[in-house]
């Protein structure tokens, strides 16, 4: 497009330049033509004058000389006139040629301009066509995306509907099972009542026979009336009139295992509204074995994402505030009436600071199955027994016989019974050492005893070891790999593609399974990955406590030493890296091997224990009394506290040194010579150590003479 415009512009400029040139040429020609025409005009005027003059001789044509002159002038005039006509004719021809040329140039310019305009129009048309195509494409994309969104929404809707239908089916199944159980219970009650009624009737019959009179007996009906009315006694209006925005107390639910039955077609969609409500956080049951065979049972609420570290809740059992145990769990709760709560269920609710409500729930039941947990110690509740795993089964005393019989069917070794005196909740007992071996088919109606019927499924479990990442274990402490479930259904288990074997503890191992790197465990029912990594190998000290007895931090005092573990770090005012040295308070002057290496330690006035601490910037060799001249010669010693290192050769000392260094060397030699003058013995009192001390004395003598 731009090229077309440029060409058009250039053509226009060219045409303009040509037109200007032609115009100027014409003007010049016209000026050039006007001058001869003016001269010819003069001739013409002369002619006219001559014509008038000629006319005048014609008028006065009587004179013969005048006539001859007139003939010559007429001939001359004719000649001039013919010449002017030829010139005019030539000029007209040239003008016609120039006009023709100008016309041609104008025509060519017009053609070029038209061509440029046509090209411009074509370019514009093409651009419009391209924009239209892009718009069309955009519209098509939008339409496709909209269609995809609609499809996704439809799919999500379908999944939601399917979930709702499944939930409804489950709810119906549960309702059916509950109704069946309720029917059984009512039947049993009716049977009991009938038996009682029969017994009463027999007694009454006996009495009637004895008293020869009849009395109506409607005991059963009287007893049944309140029972029939009880379930409907829940005040519906209460919940309707409540204006509580977030926490809403609910009644605890009773637990029923999910029946493993074929799904039935949905009947109605009325449950979808119920499904959109917020789910309650589960409350698990935990049992921890303590010392001397005791155990403790607690409730362990799960902590969801964004839940506060401390949470006030109300509900069953008057719970205390929940405190975080770790990221996913709150701390154990030990309600006073735990036995009753376990049976009837727990429902807690509270409000989160962000305005949301929190609900935690444990459905009541008579049997709990507990097993080791990957993140928690002790035994934590789970839906049902797992083949090959150690469990603890917690049940009510009324269910003890049923549980024992059910466990016997699983092929578990005889479990150990823990009664209430071992720490179980009131009315509950625990079976310890349950390890099912045989899968049992569930009842299909959601019987509570289904929790004691392990399914024939297999799970690869990674446990034990020292885990230092999500799926990473510390080198040297790999995980134990075990199969839980129907192990007999597994033909092959491979670790990193190598067939695994079992060790004596029933862990799966294979060559290189615990080496550094990533590993994969595979069996036909699934796979797990884990990695073995090195931990940290570099640790740095820091100033953990400075002039503190711990617990509460104190303000930084640079002149004080600090403690990190068992390390005593020097005050920050000293050079880093110096080591704390403990010496007797009586020998508080530290002497190094090099002249000038002297450190005077100050014993603490508030701790009179005969020791003091120093931070020499050198390796101390000797500890000598601070005031050697006045010390007790018989008690004091020059102590060797470092390696048996001879003093630095004097030749190694620099010839010129700073004033401070000269003072230090002087102090070093004076301290040694003072102890020497006193005649102090060395400690330990050995000959080699005494000789070493003599070497220091000789060095000090020489230095005193040099630096005095």
């Amino acid at each position, binding site marked *: 497009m731009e090229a077309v415009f440029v060409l058009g512009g250039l053509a226009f400029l060219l045409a303009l330049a040509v037109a200007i040139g032609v115009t100027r040429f014409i003007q010049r020609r016209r000026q050039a033509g006007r001058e001869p025409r003016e001269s010819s005009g003069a001739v013409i005027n002369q002619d006219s004058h001559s014509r008038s003059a000629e006319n005048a001789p014609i008028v006065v044509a009587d004179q013969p000389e005048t006539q001859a002159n007139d003939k010559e002038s007429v001939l001359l005039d004719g000649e001039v006139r013919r010449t002017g006509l030829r010139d005019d004719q030539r000029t007209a021809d040239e003008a016609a040629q120039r006009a023709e040329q100008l016309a041609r140039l104008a025509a060519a310019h017009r053609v070029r301009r038209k061509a440029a305009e046509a090209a411009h129009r074509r370019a514009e048309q093409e651009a419009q066509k391209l924009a239209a195509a892009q718009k069309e494409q955009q519209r098509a994309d939008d339409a496709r995306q909209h269609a995809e969104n609609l499809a996704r929404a439809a799919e999500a809707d379908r999944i939601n509907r399917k979930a709702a239908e499944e939930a409804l089916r489950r709810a119906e199944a549960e309702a059916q099972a509950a109704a069946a159980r309720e029917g059984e219970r009512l039947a049993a009650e009716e049977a009991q009542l009938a038996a009682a009624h029969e017994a009463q009737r027999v007694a009454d019959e006996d009495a009637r026979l004895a008293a020869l009179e009849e009395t109506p007996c409607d005991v059963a009906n009287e007893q049944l009336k309140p029972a029939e009315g009880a379930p409907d006694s829940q005040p519906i209006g209460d919940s309707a009139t409540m204006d509580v925005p977030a926490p809403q107390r609910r009644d605890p639910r009773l637990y029923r295992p999910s029946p493993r039955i074929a799904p039935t077609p949905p009947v109605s969609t009325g449950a979808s509204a119920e499904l959109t409500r917020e789910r309650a956080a589960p409350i698990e049951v935990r049992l921890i074995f303590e010392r001397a065979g005791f155990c403790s049972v607690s409730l362990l609420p799960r902590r969801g994402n964004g839940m506060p570290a401390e949470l006030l809740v109300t509900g069953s059992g008057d719970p205390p505030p929940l405190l975080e145990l770790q990221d996913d769990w709150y701390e154990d709760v030990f309600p006073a009436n735990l036995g009753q709560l376990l049976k009837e269920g727990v429902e807690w609710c509270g409000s989160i600071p962000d305005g949301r409500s929190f609900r935690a729930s444990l459905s009541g039941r008579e049997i709990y199955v507990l097993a080791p947990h990957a993140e928690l110690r002790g035994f934590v509740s789970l839906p049902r027994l797992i083949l090959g795993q150690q469990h603890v089964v917690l049940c009510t005393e009324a269910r003890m016989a049923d549980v024992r019989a059910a466990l016997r069917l699983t092929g578990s070794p005889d479990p150990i019974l823990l009664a209430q005196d071992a720490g179980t909740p009131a009315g509950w007992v625990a079976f310890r050492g349950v390890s099912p071996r045989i899968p049992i088919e569930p009842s299909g109606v959601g019987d509570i005893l289904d929790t004691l019927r392990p399914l024939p499924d297999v799970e690869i479990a990674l446990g034990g070891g*020292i885990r230092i990442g999500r799926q990473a274990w510390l080198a040297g402490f790999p995980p134990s790999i075990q199969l839980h479930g129907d192990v007999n259904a597994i033909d092959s288990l491979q670790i990193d593609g190598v067939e695994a074997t079992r060790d004596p503890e029933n862990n799966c191992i294979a060559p290189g399974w615990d080496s550094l790197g990533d590993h994969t465990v595979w069996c036909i029912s699934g796979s797990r990955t884990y990695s073995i990594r090195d*931990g940290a*190998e570099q640790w740095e000290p820091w100033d953990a406590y400075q002039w*503190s007895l711990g617990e509460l931090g104190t303000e930084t005092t640079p002149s004080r030493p600090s403690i990190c*573990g*068992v390390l005593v770090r020097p005050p920050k005012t000293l050079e880093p890296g110096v080591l*704390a040295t403990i010496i007797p308070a009586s020998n508080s002057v530290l002497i190094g091997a090099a002249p000038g290496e002297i450190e005077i330690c100050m014993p603490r006035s508030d701790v009179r*224990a005969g020791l003091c601490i120093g931070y020499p910037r050198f390796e101390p060799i000797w500890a000598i009394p601070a005031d050697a001249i006045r010390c007790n010669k018989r008690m004091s010693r020059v102590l060797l506290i470092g390696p048996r290192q001879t003093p630095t050769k004097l030749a190694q000392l620099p010839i010129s040194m700073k004033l401070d260094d000269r003072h230090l060397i002087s102090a070093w030699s004076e301290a040694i010579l003072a102890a020497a003058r006193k005649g102090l013995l060395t400690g330990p009192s050995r000959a080699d150590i005494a000789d070493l001390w003599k070497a220091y004395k000789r060095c000090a003598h020489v230095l005193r003479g040099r630096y005095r």
Partner: protein
Amino acid sequence: MSAAALLFWMSARRQGSWQQFRAAVEELQLNPSNDAGDDEDGSDPFALPIYQTLRFNLQRVGHAEFFSGAEDAEWRVTPPSLAVTQQPWGSRGILVGARSLLLLQRLTTAAGQAGVKLTSRVFPDYPDQVVVTADDQSALAAIAKRTGLLLQCDVSAAILLSLPPISDPCMRHPTQLPFGPDWQVGRFSTSTLGWQSATLSDAASASGSLFRFTLRHQRDVLFCERGSAFRVPAQVGKYIAFRSERHRRHVLRYNGQTHTLSMPAPCRPPFLIERALIACSASPPALQGGTLIYTEIPQNIALIVAALLHQELR
């Protein structure tokens, strides 16, 4: 799993949060040992949770520092160090701080090459105590250098001489008395060595007593003196309370023949002092009949402890 596994885990991680520590205690299935002490039976409702027990034990020995001592973390493992003490028969070094299998291998190799004795002692709820014994301190220094351990000679005296006495002003942090009727107030009795019920007005009018204020899970220990309140560590506060009495009570006992330092269990010394005492014998204190007993304590160490706590040795 044992507490040693916990120390391996901490060493591999270097530092972390309190939640991670508690999660590790849970995951490693660490349970209180049966022989933790004759006074701590399983039915004690006031017994410390296992994670607190492990935390205090790690802190006492010096394997790790927690909270205010852990710099910018909530726990941090200390660098591997050899804590050396002089004994009548030679020198003893205790491996304190971070450890890994590689480091233990290096230590075993170095000890074997130096011909010194390397033992591992097991204590309930403590990581295994790895001890190196040699005739000469220089041999331990050489082993430490070869293994890559930091060395601390005369560890007990060095630690004790770097600590302030309980009367030091830095031990007291001025604060306000709590207000509100929900606080449960207890007063430390220097005679029974227990907490007795008290009121806020008792704390406000006390002339020098230790009070404990409890509200749900929150607990503050304040030393109240003539209307002023100071936040103090609980164990420090007890000895301050002994000192402020008209008839000062002395609870430390030292037996020069058996070299044991003992005190009633409620009067456990502040943990940095305890760290120095444990380093003397490389073993935690024994709890016998309500008395804590620290063994192999030299007399000068016992004197320094008594001076720091403003006690007299009996």
